[in-house]
């Protein structure tokens, strides 16, 4: 396909953009390259931030990749979905449509903004199904690896802070697998082969819930800020633990004292509401959402 190579995932909260920067451009090609294309490449690769909200995740960049017979780097850029109009406006200003490239897009926004792309940017989107793209993406990224490392990893001894460590996971024989995609909301897919998969269920308690609740509870304004706060908080002040109710473990059900019995359960009390910090609240929100996703995912794995 003709350059530039883009892939766009327009989610409920964030737009994810991947850009392939060819590194094997011949002198001949360079000569033929139109000014627009050059300027786009330059703009994207020489910056790490775009406008006030666009960010390039430099640490994720995949180097020296071969894609469709070309060598180059894969860049990962993101910006909030509510800036989509500005993004389309920019595409229009840079005369993106004159490049005659096909803009492949997925995610709900591919449908929601299709009309805007056409009218404002004179661009025809190639809409692709979200779940198809997701599985293709997982399999591809694992196949190329992460700059020599394994893309897929897991945590060993996750409940033991001392011994917990991140270890690579081999995805050579992946099927069947459960794919839990946590965006604003959560979709859970059971994947039996490259082509054979189904959406098992989903939950509305996802990244958007974490971020949304954190904004309301702490007044933070970015996802990073929310995560940063969470990393400094103590959720046990906010949550009611098993030991808060039973004084220790609840042996009848094999529940350890440290398990959360009621998320935000301590917040029923006025005194305790007044004694918790924003960080504690952010941490509790994170724990609530992640535990819940874990629980549903486990049940789906068992049922499937």
């Amino acid at each position, binding site marked *: 396909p003709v350059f530039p190579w883009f892939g766009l995932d327009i989610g409920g909260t964030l737009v994810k953009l991947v850009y392939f920067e060819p590194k094997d451009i011949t002198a001949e090609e360079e000569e033929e390259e139109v000014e627009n294309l050059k300027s786009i490449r330059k703009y994207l690769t020489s910056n790490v931030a775009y406008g006030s909200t666009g960010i390039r995740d430099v640490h994720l960049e995949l180097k020296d990749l071969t894609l469709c017979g070309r060598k180059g780097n894969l860049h990962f850029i993101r910006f909030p979905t509510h800036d989509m109009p500005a993004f389309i406006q920019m595409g229009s200003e840079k005369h993106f449509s004159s490049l005659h490239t096909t803009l492949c897009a997925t995610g709900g926004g591919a449908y929601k903004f299709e009309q805007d792309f056409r009218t404002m940017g004179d661009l025809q989107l190639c809409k692709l199904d979200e779940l198809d793209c997701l599985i293709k993406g997982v399999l591809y990224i694992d196949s190329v690896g992460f700059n020599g490392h394994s893309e897929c990893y897991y945590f060993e001894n996750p409940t033991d802070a001392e011994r917990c460590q991140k270890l690579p996971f081999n995805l050579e024989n992946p099927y069947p697998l459960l794919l839990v995609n946590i965006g604003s909301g959560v979709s859970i897919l059971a994947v039996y082969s490259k082509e054979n998969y189904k959406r098992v269920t989903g939950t509305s308690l996802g990244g958007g819930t974490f971020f949304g609740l954190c904004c309301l509870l702490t007044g933070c304004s970015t996802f990073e800020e929310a995560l940063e706060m969470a990393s400094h908080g103590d959720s046990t002040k906010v949550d009611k633990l098993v030991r808060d109710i039973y004084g220790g473990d609840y042996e009848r*059900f094999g529940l350890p004292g440290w398990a959360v019995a009621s998320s935000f359960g301590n917040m029923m009390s006025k005194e305790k509401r007044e004694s918790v910090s924003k960080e504690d609240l952010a941490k509790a929100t994170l724990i609530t959402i992640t535990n819940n996703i874990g629980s549903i995912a486990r049940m789906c794995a068992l049922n499937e």
Partner: protein
Amino acid sequence: GGSLTKLAYYSTVQHKVARVRSFDHSGKDIENEPLYEISVQEEITARLHFIKFENTYIETCLDFIKDHLVNTETKVIKATGGGAYKFKDLIEKKLGLKVDKEDVMTCLIKGCNFVLRNIPHEVFAYQKDSDTEFRFQTNHPNIFPYLLVNIGSGVSIVKVETEDKFEWIGGSSIGGGTFWGLGALLTKTKKFDELLQLASKGQHTNVDMLVKDVYGGAYQTLGLSGNLIASSFGKSTTADKEFSKEDMAKSLLHMISNDIGQLACLYAKLHNLDKIYFGGFFIRGHPVTMRTITYSINFFSKGEVQALFLRHEGYLGAIGAFLKGAEQDNPNQYSWGENYAGSSGLMSTSPDVYPMQRTRSGTFDMLEMDRLERPLVNLPLLKDPSTYIPDTVDLTDDAMARKYWLTCFEEALDGVAKRAAASQPDSVDALERAEKFRQKYWNKLQTLRQQPFAYGTLTVRSLLDTREHCLNEFNFPDPYSKVKQKENGIALKCFQSVIESLDSLGWEERQFALVKGLLAGNVFDWGAKAVSDVLESEPQFGFEEAKSKLQERPWLEDSYSQWLERLKEGPPHKCALIFADNSGIDIILGVFPFVRELLSRGTEVILACNSGPALNDVTYSESLIVTERIAAMDPVIQSALREEKLLLVQTGSSSPCLDLSRLDKGLAVLVRERKTDLVIIEGMGRAIHTNYYAALKCESLKLAVIKNSWLADRLGGKIFSVIFKYEVPCK
């Protein structure tokens, strides 16, 4: 519990019962003596009481216990729930009893099994946007296995397989405490009930990110509707916008209910269970949470699983704790009956009626259950006990019928109270008690007008039973005792002449005359207003006149020809079970000649009468005396009694209606032993208000005269229309 103390206690209750006793007639002038002696005696029965106190009034609760702990050997009080720890010292100090803490979940499940087994219409499903928000389920003979999802601060999911076997299979920390705690943080509203109020007024779409917010419409390839929540609180991901308290509370409620519903469905699927009962303070009678949980279960199970709720859910733990303490008495060996007089109903959900009550979190303030003297079981001849519904019309469903019957019972109330007072002429406070009865029943009727679902499915039977319970409550154990005594006496005097005239008829004529006699006897029913008017104004209204009032054939429901054919062509029945209706003319001149004919054909007869009084229905003890007197006149009856071919049993009921799923165990045993192949049910209460559609495994005869013009009209007939329904089960 967290905010309420629920108390279950067992006591003996002294109340008056009517007894009948045969006179020793030897050497006396039988002609002018009454048939038997009626006496009112004190009887002691066992009753389970349940009562609620707010924890703020724990001292009042303890005083209450102290006041009731008289003449008792009680040394230990069983306690469960968080408060069992919190209030342990206070309880021990104040009451001088040892507090025995019991496991919460064990108590909960014990209590749950108990109500599922003993309280009819305990279980209901919630339906949104329906005239009747509550749909009650009939008790399934086999209650296991089920899933109990208890939503307190957190969520516990328990699989219950047998009486003693249950397993905690999972849970979630996102529960009522999350709604309350997070809700309080978000809205600065402190009380749980106020949060629910806020939620019921909010618009979650202002806070939640919907599928259409992401896609611009539905996600069609997956069939996800545009209105589905994609991300709870997904729109609040901004620091510079204000959200209303109502909207946030609603969004939170949806988030939590959906999450619990989803997990419950996943667990139900994994364990292959289709019944999920929900309980805990998050649910407790709150229509808002029942609605969202029901929606969620329906969505996630694609309609395969139904969310079910319990009327007495708030009491399960207390009931269970009590049962643990009473294990040596083995309460499960008994049957229990809900006492409608002593129980308050399900809270109103209509905001216009009781705006104050709506905010309360209790489904029930009081519950009383009477221990029945004998265990109750299914009639073994029921075709399908799991689908048997005794009542013909569900008045919670049928608004027109409900209006009519409530008015009908209201209009009859003054008369009932008057008759009750008149039945105890020697009692100084009879008038006062009758007025108290009138007031109590009147209030019950008003409650039922506003909340038809207050005591489970509203039926003519429940209205009648409630009236009986209220009469008993004010010591009118049997207002009709004297009327029955008199009528029995009069009817006995006519017995021989009736038999003679029947015997003079040819076989076919006699069969018809017997059926007509049975129907005519049934006209004598003090329970129906139309007849009581006639009877009170024309006391001479006799048996023959009753016959002439009957509708001419073809009757409104008429399978008499098939019945006659069956008698003519078929072999005699092995054994007939007859549920008798009224005292006096009905039993003596209607039922007995019929019984006599059956006996002569070689058919054994089990005659089942009520254990306790209801209206002018013949009771078991009355039937013993009446039968003895008839036997003295009639050799057929006499020898049948001697040879045990005629057996008298009690039904286990004190209702003018008949629930074939709750009958005396002795009756059931006898029915099986004698290989009963014919069931005869007579009277409006037993054959029309109940059992009209009951399917049996054997032949059955349901007969009644419709003595209510509205009902007759509804069935397409006139007053005194005849129902004669002979049914043979399909082979």
